[in-house]
């Protein structure tokens, strides 16, 4: 496989980390609490349910796009990536993005998902893509830009997996179009979407035991 975009993504995220919101002092604990584990699991499971529904509906939605301009169907595939970014943004612990995506993939597999346990492999690589971005940002930046980048990272993971497993030996035009679409979709749908979702969740008070929720409350007070 050609790591066609690995180098790019590293550069982009390093450059962007300076524009990301500054780290907040004092440095929050990196240790997972019980509530972190359970809520990350619950969000992962809920994400898995969304994946199952999406698995059953995406073909009719993306098929026309695929027929018109092959490769562009990946523009909607970011739906599979949102658990990674969402769990990362809510829980803010090392490994959260990877864990969230893995639990979501395992849930969709347990529910008789589309690809059985092969989904785990996708979950692993996609989760790692997002996790890597949060790690490069030293688990200190959780704003919109880091969210978009994490989604992009997950998209890279998905593109690598899909092009290796499903579309090996496809023509370069297709591969490039597919990969770029996957990355854009990851950034916008999974990254931007999860950022919006986290904000909306914080507003409901459901995240009061998480820094992500308390920061919002503090902002609302001031």
């Amino acid at each position: 496989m050609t790591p066609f975009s690995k180098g790019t993504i590293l550069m982009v995220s390093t450059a962007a980390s300076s524009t990301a919101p500054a780290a907040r002092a004092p440095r929050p604990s990196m240790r997972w609490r019980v509530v972190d584990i359970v809520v990350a699991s619950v969000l992962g499971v809920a994400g898995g349910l969304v994946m199952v529904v999406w698995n059953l509906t995406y073909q009719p939605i993306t098929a026309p796009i695929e027929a018109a301009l092959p490769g562009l169907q990946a523009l909607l595939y970011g739906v599979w990536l949102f658990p990674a970014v969402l769990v990362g943004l809510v829980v803010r612990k090392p490994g959260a993005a990877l864990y969230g995506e893995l639990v979501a993939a395992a849930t969709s597999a347990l529910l008789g998902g589309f690809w059985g346990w092969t989904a785990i492999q996708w979950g692993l690589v996609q989760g790692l893509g997002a996790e890597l971005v949060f790690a490069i940002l030293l688990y200190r930046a959780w704003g919109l830009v880091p969210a978009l980048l994490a989604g992009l990272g997950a998209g890279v993971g998905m593109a690598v997996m899909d092009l290796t497993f499903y579309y090996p030996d496809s023509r370069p035009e297709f591969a490039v179009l597919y990969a770029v679409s996957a990355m854009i979709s990851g950034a916008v749908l999974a990254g931007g979407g999860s950022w919006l979702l986290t904000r909306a969740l914080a507003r409901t008070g459901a995240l009061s035991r998480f820094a992500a929720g308390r920061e919002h409350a503090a902002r609302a007070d001031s």
Partner: protein
Amino acid sequence: MPIPDTGRPPGGDAALASRAGAASLAAEAWSWTPAGRAAPVLDGLDLAIEPGERVLLLGASGSGKSTLLQAFAGVLGADDEGTRAGTLTVDGRDPADARGRVGLLLQDPDAQLVLARAGDDIAFGPENLGVPVEEIRRRVPLALAAVGLDLPLDADTTRLSGGQKQRLALAGVLALRPGALLLDEPTAQLDPAGVREVAAAVAELVADRSMTLLVVEHRVDVWAPLVDRVIVLEEGRVVADGPVADVMRAQGERLAARGVWVPGRAPEHPSPASREPGETLLRARGVAVRPRGGEVVQSGLDLEVRAGEVIALTGVNGAGKTTLALTLAGLLEPAAGEVVAGDALRGIVPPVDEPSPAAWSSRALVARLGVVFQNPEHQFIAATVREELGVGPRALGRSEGEVAAIVEPLLDRLRLRALAGSSPFTLSGGEQRRLSVATALATAPPVLVLDEPSFGQDSRTWAELAALLAAHRDAGGAIVMATHDRELVAALTAREVVLPAPAAASPITATGGVHRSVVAGESTGSRNERPTDDGEAPRRPRAPLVERLNPVAAIAATLLPALMLIVTLDVVSAGVALALQLALLPLLGVAPRLLLLRLAPVLIAAPLTALTLLLYGEEGGRVYAELLLVRISDNSIELAAATFLRVLAIGIPAIALFARPDATRLGDALSQNLRLPARFVLGAVAALRLITLLRDDARMLERARRARGVGDRGAIRRAAGLVLSLLVLAIRRGSSLAIAMEARGFGARIRRTWLRASPWRGVDSAAVLVGVLVSVAALVAALQTGEFNAIVD
């Protein structure tokens, strides 16, 4: 870390009494301020509870009762979650060092159970505390008996009634052999039968004073006979403390005013209906009702709903009260018979032609029928209270001026003005109830349908609710409510319609009637296996191979061959692998119908993926067709064929080996065989149990959206709104579950024991080996025929 009682099997039938005896609880000038809050929740609290004492803790919502219980249970969280001052001890020690000495039972029966089978769930706490397996095996049936539950150990925990779930959760707490029982509104979400069950079980347990009892409840009558002493909290401080009778005499009036149900101080009833019922608004004729995806629970029902009357649908759990209410409200189709709206109801704008509410648009519905759901959070869809009240009027196309003219007076009438800018989800239970009724009233529908509106409410909210409903009735509206609440029926002088208990609907035993829909992934516990005492996976003679395999073996037998197969893309290797797999498939013993059902998606996906490569695969050889980017060539045809076979060769074993997945066994195998961190694996397994609930939530959310007037929106907009509500509900349950799990020792830095062993047998190694050999054979065949086509070149 010192752990009391572990590993010392007590002598004789000392049953579950803690070796260390009842625990003492004490707080001295203790304060707790949660992170992000300016004011402390508990403020300089002084309190001492002696071993074996039985105490009822009272106070208005927000007075810090739950926080105090969580503090004694040692689950308030570390310093980044809040600041504390003073001392708080269990047996004179820091609660964090006294894990297992204190057992905590919470309100929501669905957010406390961790595992799919009853016996496993009871064992969860002792396992976390490293209690030896033989000792756990002894405690589990004792705990089950102690709460009066007669269930097989492999009973499916999703199928129990609320009262049964709550007693099972109590058994899980007892299995820790705690010295103190802390109960946080343990009966608030139960029907009267469930309340009696749980209260009786607790009474039995604390009768000999072998455990200290601290219970938070606003229903004094249930607990007064059980306790010696009452403590009243107000704004984080103790304001009264003494024997029940004394405190009630001195503080009764004040407590009643703050919403506590004080015996002899029933909330005021509204005056009875001033006039006779008028014309018929809604008529049910020969109606049979069934919940979605369930069986018919009632049939042949006739009912007339007339203007100015209140109808109470009563009956035991499972009698179909809610189902009938939802059917009358046009949110469920009747299974037989018809529900017909009267002329007065149909004549409202926007006009409708259809007589049956189930056929109406969401917009037509919201003008005619206001629905109040049991859980208010199911029906909230807006970001603020003010917007929430405007949802219905806006759906009816009212102008902004008209919306304001409706919303602003409602804010005052229901005492919600101070909260107008808050998210509905941040409100207290009583506030949420008022808001949910207000949203239904906002479109002035003639008929109000309510599901258990008074459930778990404090006396103040109850009185307000009764007054609101009476006002609606007296203004000529009709009310249909499903309820267990005798007092509400009396207060509204409701016409009672008692639904008979259905023949097969009592969710009493594991194998009884279907109480809740069960997802495929969790259905394994529901088969009629004999309970097993050895804690291993239920063994039946000649269980099919697919159920005997260690789940980790199944994963390995799936993934290793898949990783080998992907190095080449050619017809020979994929074809050989697929042929061998299909030959081996019958050995697994999966029922053909189930297999086909599970495989259906991949059977659809494989040709679609192949089509992509046919059209856009690398070209080579003769080109048969060409259009824009499409090039069908010899090479792309071959690629397509190879891809088709390969997707099947990778997908079929992966799906077949997990045709009957069992989350508990998988979790055990991942932790014990693969040595993945148990905290994370168990967290995921616990979360998986919530799937059934989430699916029911999703259905209810969808219904609520229809009832609120926004059900006519496009599928994508509806789905997006649904996801947020679903996540809020999931996080709330998850947060509560986390407290329950932590109180049961989850996350403690102790080497865990496992009641349920996950053995790796010869057959497991064989399965992995066969999987690998199939791939090797396939690759060799490809190399031999010269078809090997490396994907990385």
